[in-house]
């Protein structure tokens, strides 16, 4: 499991590299090589590091440990077929981590990024509704039980397509360069991670790789079902390419518009959940 943890981190970083490459090619740029994010993590880990004078030392360094720790826990939950609620609880904890990153630095850019991570919590509401719909169908929120359900009755991607769309939106909100990536918008330099450099940024890159792997793996487990390892790898690459298309073809929204659109999607998915509850599976 430890080897898998390290490989998942590297593969997650590779997926983020593919994401950047696809966006670049859509925008007619050559783009960086697909292993750029792995090189980024390595590069930052070699840089001289210190804690800025304006930062809260304990929080500035401790939040990096928390970031890696929570996604390590999520990785274990995914690999052992544990509860979907735990993974989504960790997804919400990541919001606190982003907030902690921003506020600990003392930089105004970081602080604005941290504040935006709080207002972008609207992206999590479709998640709740999507989870509720999955529970209606499968009568369980254990990933192993959800996979078993799909093995018997087919992928939930087909039977609960709107819930899968809501989950896709959740993934999109966590992707860099996406329409909802308001926490790291260019007007904030790098947002909540502006002041985290050197080994602290390398630690954040490790967290991002692991997070990407876990979120895409969760999507495949919950909406596709049982897959072999090669199929999981192909599925994750297909997902990241779809996300890259979405990111490349949509402008980054203003914070207000981002929250408005996510709230509207929540309303639509809520209507769908009511239909499922009352009509499809009364």
């Amino acid at each position, binding site marked *: *499991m430890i080897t898998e943890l390290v490989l998942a981190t590297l593969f997650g970083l590779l997926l983020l590299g593919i994401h950047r490459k696809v966006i670049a090619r859509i925008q007619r740029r050559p783009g960086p090589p697909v292993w750029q994010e792995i090189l980024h993590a*390595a590069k930052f*880990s*070699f*840089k001289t590091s210190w804690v800025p004078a304006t930062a809260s030392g304990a929080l500035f360094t401790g939040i990096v440990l928390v970031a*890696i720790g929570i996604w390590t826990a999520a990785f274990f939950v995914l690999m052992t077929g544990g509860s979907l609620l735990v993974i989504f609880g960790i997804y919400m904890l990541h919001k606190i981590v982003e907030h902690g990153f921003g506020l600990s630095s003392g930089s105004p850019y970081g602080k604005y990024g941290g504040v935006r991570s709080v207002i972008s919590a609207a992206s999590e509401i479709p998640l709740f509704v999507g989870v509720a719909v999955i529970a209606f169908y499968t009568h369980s929120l254990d990933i192993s039980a959800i996979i078993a359900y799909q093995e018997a009755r087919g992928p939930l991607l087909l039977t609960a397509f709107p819930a899968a769309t809501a989950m896709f939106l959740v993934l999109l909100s966590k992707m860099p360069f996406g329409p909802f990536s308001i926490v790291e918008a260019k007007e904030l330099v790098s947002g909540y991670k502006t002041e985290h450099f050197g*080994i602290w940024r390398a630690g954040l890159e490790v967290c991002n790789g692991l997070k990407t792997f876990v979120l895409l793996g969760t999507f495949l487990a919950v909406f596709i079902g049982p897959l072999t390892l090669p199929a999981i790898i192909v599925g994750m690459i297909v997902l990241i390419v779809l996300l890259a298309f979405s990111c490349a073809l949509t402008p980054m929204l203003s914070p207000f518009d981002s929250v408005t659109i996510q709230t509207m999607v929540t309303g639509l998915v809520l209507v769908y959940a009511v239909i499922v509850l009352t009509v499809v599976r009364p």
Partner: protein
Amino acid sequence: MSGRLKRNAGKLVAAGVIACGTAFALHGYGWIPLWVFAAVVVLAFPPAVLALFLWWMADVGEEDIPFIGY
């Protein structure tokens, strides 16, 4: 970065690897449940990663280590 920092970071990496390895072996033999194994890795993996970065970044001399990975 001082040589002392490099030594301490090296010790932390070793401690993290030993903790994860021991938990892995104990879980493999069935002596500890999965959640204990997972808890040990969740606690030991992040500091081991950061300590590893600190260990190979910290130099006993004055100069930084240039990155030539490209």
